[in-house]
């Protein structure tokens, strides 16, 4: 599995070691800034962000390099919905299914596990990834103290490199477990799944349709207020009775927003005040 594991390492973020970290280090060491380098690095960051937040991308790419794009898309889409609305607020780190998206796709393609069974692994793997993140955040406390000493010694290049390589560290926090997971974990995981009773894996598979409720709940916690609750029900009724999809929902929402904001703050309000 080592060859597969290496491909998965690349799609799990390993690519950015070459396309993002190396250009950054070159700019830092040469101390020469340029617009081109700035844009290149920023665009690479954009791609990195897309892969980190949109779990469809790592899942689909894993599917692509392991020879089954369709499975990757399906698992990525399922996980995306399960975790829609789960994001970092303040400094609280939520479970992160990035690794799970990659490993459950690899599991389905490389063994005879089915997609429902693989979904059962998503939640435990996401919590494991959360623990890795918390661990790296603790390790970073040590690095920020190192940065204090570098600042006192006017070690500009050291500071520059420390934070840049820290960013690369965040990528490796995903990419190394993905590599090890595929290289060493696929067979044990497949054996584990084979001893899970059918009723349990069926139940865990069904959580794919239930867990979006958690994501939406967390989302509403952020954006809901008495003022905007009615719009939630307008959207809900439109979808419940007319089966509109997210694109139509977005268009409906933009129309409502334009009308509402204009009514609230536009010329009518101003005329009323005069």
């Amino acid at each position, binding site marked *: 599995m080592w060859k597969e594991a290496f491909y998965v390492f690349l799609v799990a973020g390993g690519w950015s070691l070459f396309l993002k970290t190396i250009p950054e280090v070159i700019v830092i060491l040469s101390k020469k800034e*340029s*617009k081109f*380098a*700035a*844009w290149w690095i*920023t665009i690479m960051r*954009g791609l990195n*962000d897309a892969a980190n*937040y*949109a779990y*469809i991308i790592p899942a*689909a790419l894993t599917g692509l390099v392991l020879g089954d*794009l369709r499975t990757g898309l*399906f698992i*990525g*889409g399922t996980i*995306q*919905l399960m975790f*829609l609305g*789960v*994001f970092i607020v303040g*400094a609280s780190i939520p*479970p992160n299914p990035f690794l799970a998206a990659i490993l459950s796709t690899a599991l389905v393609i490389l063994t005879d596990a089915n997609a429902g069974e693989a979904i059962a692994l998503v939640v435990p793997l996401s919590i494991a990834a959360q623990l890795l993140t918390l661990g790296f*955040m603790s390790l970073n406390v040590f690095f*920020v103290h190192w*940065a204090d000493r570098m*600042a*006192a010694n*006017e070690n*500009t290049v050291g*500071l520059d490199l420390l*934070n*840049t390589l*820290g*960013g690369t560290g*965040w990528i490796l926090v995903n990419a190394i477990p993905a590599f090890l997971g595929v290289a060493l974990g696929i067979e044990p995981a497949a054996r584990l799944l084979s001893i899970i009773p059918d009723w349990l894996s069926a139940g*865990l598979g*069904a959580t794919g349709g*239930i*867990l979006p409720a*958690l994501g*939406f*709940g967390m989302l509403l916690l*952020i*954006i*809901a207020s008495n003022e905007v609750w009615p719009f939630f029900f*307008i*959207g809900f009724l439109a*979808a*419940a009775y007319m089966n509109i999809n*997210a*694109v139509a*929902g977005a268009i409906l*929402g*933009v129309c*409502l*927003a334009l009308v*509402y*904001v204009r009514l609230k*703050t536009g010329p009518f309000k101003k005329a009323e005040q005069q």
Partner: protein
Amino acid sequence: MIEEKKKISEHALYGAFWRNNNFAGNYNFERLMALGMTQVMIPIFRSLGYTGEKLKKGYERHLVFYNTHPYFGSLIMGVMVAMEEAKANDESITPSAINDVKVAMMGPFAGIGDSFFWGTIHPIIFAIAANLALEENFLGVIISLLIGVIAVLGTYYPFFWGYRAGVGVVEQIRSSEILDKFVLGAKVVGMTVAGVMVASLINISTPLVLFQTEAEGSGVVLQDLLDSILPKALPLALLFGVFFLLKKKVSPIVVMLILIVLTVLFTTLGWI
């Protein structure tokens, strides 16, 4: 003798702009994005010709607690760059004045960024992309890449706006109400789409038949009954159950475990 006004070179500005991408390079429990903010200042201090004690003090005043939204926070980075440029020409600007502006902005900006980017734009893109991906359509990946486009534009424009407007940006935002309108509008879109997604993406229904007797076709199919009252009543009830727990400050992990246990239990019992 007239001293020439110090100005940050354009190249240094772009140097700060790309370093802004590493805002979380050293994300840690003690000071969160402190080193990310400090790294942005590296090309700025270099361009202003800081050395020795001045450089040390410069790094020191930015190596303090800082945490905000990744995209919208670049506006604060831009304002900080502008303030450093002003400080290089006017020593009366104190380090604590710089820090006060930073602290005053990071909370509200995190709130705006969370509700606009995380709460509204991302879920809409995810919902569209996930529906395509579930149909095994590669367009799901292409749509997902929009997240990257938003990351690039969502840092570029705020950063340079922050630099050009400087501290005045706070006043600009307050007086023009443009941001308030924007956030309110985004919330309306976000709530509408959340309503649509609750009805279309939460997948729960029941096969239960009530009052069933021996006779063929007897009993009341519970799902039909529910549908005749309100279609998608179960997803809505589930959502409000979750929302209630979260409002009561139950940790999301606990809610997740409750959902998993109940789902396994009800599936096994054949209730859903």
